[in-house]
């Protein structure tokens, strides 16, 4: 719907759809729950050039903007694909903004290595992180994609305000404890720093915050995709399924429910788009819009995922049905990155700061 895209962006979406459709991503989400190991989608991301989306062309990146990354993430979400971009891209964006070493950026842009963002602000409860010059202590809980990354971009508070550091994942004092997840597609870990040493990135305080906000809006874009995928599935079922002599989609109870899904999805998508534009045109509003996008994307998926099951009736609540996988995605995503209230609170914070 009413999205004005450039030809390049249309192509990016098509290419993403093409690359992902060749993988059984939804089936893989179930297989992991059954104890099987799923194919990593990182090579897909590398081959498609997504690993370097936000890295400059000087370091073998594509030099594109978050807006483009969101388009890719929406396609990933639609198929429940997690190519570890949620951790990688925000980390790369901070490295890029800080003008980090070209080889450091290049290895990640080319996909030889992965980066991950470890921002205490988005940590689960019991997160404690302190930074003293180049030394990092504490544990950040529930970090996306840290497992398997070789470089961690750590964001925390120094006495002077928020700072970002690059910490090697294999540095002394770094421990990355992978956790099993309700949504099997995710890579979630607790990251502990026991006096680990890192290198400070040269970034203004406002730009340090960009990493977390970018992760939130990418996650929002991904959730919009997931909700939209669930809606598409539900819509098809509502057209085909007959009850009491009519397609169930002809009943107002079902019809209005699907429109409610659409409404929430479009609201979230509008904010994802607006945040993407703000990054380029009005960076001061980026944080506000990114967090608002996250809030509305949660509202969209919180509503769409369970209702997808409900509309499908009993069959929707079975292990074999895909609806379950979207539901698990929704339940888990809501609690990622500090949970739903963290984003709402950030929206309030940005607005109240204008008083």
């Amino acid at each position, binding site marked *: 719907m009413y999205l004005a895209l450039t030809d390049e962006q249309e192509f990016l979406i098509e290419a993403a759809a093409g690359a992902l459709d060749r993988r059984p991503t939804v089936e893989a989400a179930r297989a992991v729950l059954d104890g099987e190991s799923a194919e990593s989608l990182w090579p897909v991301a590398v081959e498609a050039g997504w690993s370097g989306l936000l890295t400059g062309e000087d370091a073998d990146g594509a030099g594109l903007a978050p807006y483009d990354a969101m388009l890719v993430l929406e396609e990933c979400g639609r198929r429940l694909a997690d190519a570890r971009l949620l951790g990688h891209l925000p980390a790369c964006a901070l490295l890029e903004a800080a003008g980090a070493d070209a080889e450091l950026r290049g290895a990640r842009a080319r996909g030889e290595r992965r980066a991950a963002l470890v921002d205490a602000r988005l940590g689960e409860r019991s997160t404690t992180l302190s930074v003293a010059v180049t030394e990092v202590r504490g544990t950040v809980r*529930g970090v996306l994609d840290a497992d398997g990354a070789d470089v961690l971009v750590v964001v925390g508070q120094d006495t002077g305000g928020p700072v970002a550091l690059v910490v090697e994942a294999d540095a002394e004092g770094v421990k990355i404890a992978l956790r099993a997840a309700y949504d099997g597609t995710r890579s979630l870990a607790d990251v502990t720093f026991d006096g680990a040493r890192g290198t400070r990135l040269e970034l203004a305080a406002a730009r340090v915050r960009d990493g977390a906000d970018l992760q939130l809006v990418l996650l929002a874009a991904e959730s919009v995709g997931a909700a939209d995928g669930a809606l598409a599935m539900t819509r098809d079922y509502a057209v085909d399924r007959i009850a009491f002599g009519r397609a169930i989609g002809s009943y107002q109870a079902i019809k209005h429910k699907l429109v409610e899904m659409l409404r929430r999805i479009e609201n979230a998508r509008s904010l994802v788009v607006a945040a993407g534009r703000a990054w380029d045109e009005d960076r001061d509003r980026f944080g506000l819009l990114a967090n608002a996008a996250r809030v509305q994307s949660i509202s969209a998926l919180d509503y769409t995922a369970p209702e997808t099951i409900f509309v499908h009736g009993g069959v*929707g609540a*079975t292990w074999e049905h895909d609806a379950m996988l979207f539901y698990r995605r929704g339940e888990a995503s*809501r609690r990622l990155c500090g949970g739903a209230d963290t984003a709402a609170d950030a929206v309030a914070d940005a607005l109240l700061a204008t008083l």
Partner: protein
Amino acid sequence: MSTIDATNLETWRAELRTWLDENAEHAPARTVLEPKTDEQVAHWRAWQARMADAGYVGITWPSEYGGRDGVPAQVVEVERELKARDLQGGFDFIGLDMIGPTILAHGSREQKERMIPPLLRADETWCQLLSEPGAGSDLASVSTRAKRQDDGSWLVNGQKVWTSFAQHAAFAILLARTDTEVAKHKGLTTFLVPLDLAGITIRPLRQITGDAEFNEVFLDDVVLTDDMRIGEPGEGWKVTLTMLGFERVAVGSGLHATQIGPLVRTVGARPEDREDARIRVRLGEVASQLLALEATSERVMEEIGEGRVPGPDAGLIKITSVLASLDACRLAVDVAGQEALREGEWSNQVSALPGVRSAGGTEEILRNLIGERVLGLPPEPRPAPATPKGR
């Protein structure tokens, strides 16, 4: 046990309490979870047998079939006492609450004598073969076919789904189409089917929890003798409506909703949360719904205790139960964090709830029913009833 009235109900209640004090150790704890291991099932069945022997299940049923000729108030008392002690009731609630009363209402004397006593003791447990892949909410459109044979027996072919407890059951009540020439509600007949007959295949159906709470049941050339029929041929819808009425009573008198205790314990686990205005207000709002659910169940139980049959508005309890439990789970996991999704009580509830919503009539069907029967709103115009195709 002699007939109970207001004057001796008090004495009877005292006996019940004493008995429960003495026998509670044999009872499983009340939980929203289904029993998982064979051992748990056996333990729960034994508890039902113990209760039956003491006269605390089938209380209102005729003594000639093993009941106690009691009054509804006694049933309500038993439920209240069990609840207060956090103990389970009978294992085979489908048999006790729905099928048993249906057999007593529509079955032959021979059927009652054969079926009821072992049902009471959970020696033989029951399940329902009603829904089909193509007939969920619209139950009257079932297409499982029972064809009369020349020898008077019935040849059954079809597929049933969402059958709870089929893996434990000895018998099922079956709704099948016996006449394809008449309007869809008129061509149905019900049967009481031994599940060990040739041609019956039970296939577990895994739910979101990963466990198989339901089953698919396939019927391939299953032969039923005519004495397994309950009600007249063509009266299957009437028998089914009787059973659904009893189901409403069962739903109204206490359901598998989230319990307040565990919710409060989870939400209040950390001292700082207990002082957090946002968490407190959410807890207060969610808990109020759960308290309303309890209070409404109490009202329905009281009505049952007075011998009246709850109206369709008892279906509101089902709706609130699901909505309030969803809110409760959302809050509990929001506070406890992502990890609570991985295993344990909340993980199980989060996964089990979506299935509960569809079981026993979707919310939409219940709202139609309540809107039309309780509020007197006009029904939707329906397409002319079509005669369903047979197999």
